[in-house]
């Protein structure tokens, strides 16, 4: 099998890949979330949804060992997160935080994902570039290989960073808001791609704000707001009560053409001169 390809083998479905046991995390002296527990099985794809600042990204960082829990423990592949565990994790950070003017090409970014197996020489060996190109072809971004990352569309940028995460042939993929800043079609393309990867045995956890898209594509959702509010299938967790508890806001849940849809209830301004009826 070519290194960096998408042709992974399907893993045993009952193997626990992620086990988070009563963890508390925070910054400074302020806890962000307390007593969080959850688990993911091999091949499972799950979406972590919740408002901004609810701790979703911090939870991903705890799974990566970038944030150390104050209490409790995180076990990935049955072991505490360390160097050997990280070798089997692919990570796509929030792309908003990157410097898009940075002088790197798409191919250079993808090659960063193979850092562990690379020589210390400043240049790449032919096999390394070939593996990156194969993966980029599979993700439909081979044409962009030599373009500077800012010159790419939002969907191409997401695919480049997904390719980087896949270069190390991970078994667990963590994505922080992979659907942000892209149009609706690209959102669905990305989620289809993740479904394909999941079908090949990859375990996937992603954070997102796009409730309708994840309801249509992901079989398991975790509603999170400084703790797990609820988890289950979209039908089970996307209820007005659970969404109110997660977002502290009223939301409408309805079905249209067989799809589960969530909509914000418009918040009416009730200032001193408002003449809107209740």
């Amino acid at each position, binding site marked *: 099998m070519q290194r960096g390809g998408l042709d992974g083998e399907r893993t045993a479905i009952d193997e626990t890949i992620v086990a988070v046991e009563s963890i508390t995390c925070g910054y400074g002296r302020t806890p962000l979330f307390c007593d969080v527990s959850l688990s993911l099985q091999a091949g499972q794809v799950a979406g972590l949804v919740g408002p901004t600042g609810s701790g979703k990204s911090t939870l991903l960082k705890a799974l*990566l060992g*970038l944030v150390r829990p104050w209490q409790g423990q995180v076990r990935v592949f049955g072991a505490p997160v360390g160097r050997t565990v*990280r070798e089997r994790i692919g*990570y796509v950070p929030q792309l908003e935080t990157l410097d898009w003017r*940075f*002088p790197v090409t798409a191919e250079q970014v993808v090659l*960063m994902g193979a*850092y562990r197996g690379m020589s*210390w*020489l400043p240049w790449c060996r032919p096999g390394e570039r070939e593996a990156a190109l194969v993966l980029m072809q599979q993700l439909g971004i081979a044409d962009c290989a030599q373009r500077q990352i800012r010159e790419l569309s939002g969907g191409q940028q997401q695919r480049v960073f997904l390719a980087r995460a896949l270069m190390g042939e991970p078994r667990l993929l963590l994505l922080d808001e992979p659907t942000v800043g892209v149009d609706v079609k690209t959102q669905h393309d990305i989620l289809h791609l993740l479904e394909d990867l999941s079908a090949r045995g990859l375990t996937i956890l992603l954070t997102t704000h796009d409730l309708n898209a994840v309801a249509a594509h992901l079989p398991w959702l975790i509603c999170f707001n400084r703790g797990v509010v609820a988890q289950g299938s979209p039908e089970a967790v996307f209820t007005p009560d659970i969404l109110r508890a997660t977002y502290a806001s009223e939301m409408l849940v309805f079905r249209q053409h067989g799809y589960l849809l969530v909509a914000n209830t418009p918040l009416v301004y009730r200032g001193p001169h408002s003449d809107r009826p209740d």
Partner: protein
Amino acid sequence: MAFLLEPLTYLFFQRALLASLLTGALCGLIGVYIVLRRMSYIGHGLSHAVFGGAVVSYFLQLNFYLGAGLWGIASALLINQVAQRRQVGADAAIGIVTTASFAIGVAVISRQRRFTRNFEAALFGNVLGITPADLWMIGGVTVAAVIGILLLYKPLLFSTFDEETAEVYGVPTHWVNAVFAVLLAAVILVGMQVMGVTLIAAALVIPASAARLLTHRFGRLLWLSSLLGAAMSILGMYASYYLDMASGATIVLVGAGMFLIAWLLSLEGRRGRHSAP
């Protein structure tokens, strides 16, 4: 041709030209990482910190490179360490460490007025006073920095681009940052002789910033910035000789002119792309 060769008949100019050529190229190379890591202030601050070490080593009659070098490396590592703590931001950490170190130098000078003059050279550079020992030191740091950058090419690129993810993918970011800080301290130490404490930051920032306007390729940026750093130093030295101006200041002014040209070229390039059918 005589215009170029005439200054070279003087040994002091030969040494000065070689020293400024090497330090210009070296600052251009290291400067790429300074600019991309948005650490422009660190070059400025670290040169001030090294000044404190230079004064103290002179006062204690220690070798300049040994005393100021150790002081500079300690300051660089301290800045690197403090900057990684969330409670104190990198800019504040650099400000605290470097100004305190600079203040030590000023305080010692104010108590020992007899060597005030030597430190004018440290503040504004004294490229004409370069000795063969200085040249060896500059050459050694140049070789070490180039080897260091080549060996750390991939981890430095990854951690400069996306430090947090680099750590996930196995880049020992703390070590990479520490080695880079030591390299930077060494470059500032030898660059101080040519540019002086007050102007070395410009030599670090100008070539890389100008080169960045001209290319979007990382590899090309490294050599173009080094080339611009070397060119700025050579042109500055000749201008300094013929216009009878301070060498450090002239090099910086030439660099500022080069940056302006690069900016105009980049504007022209952008306009050309937009008007293309």
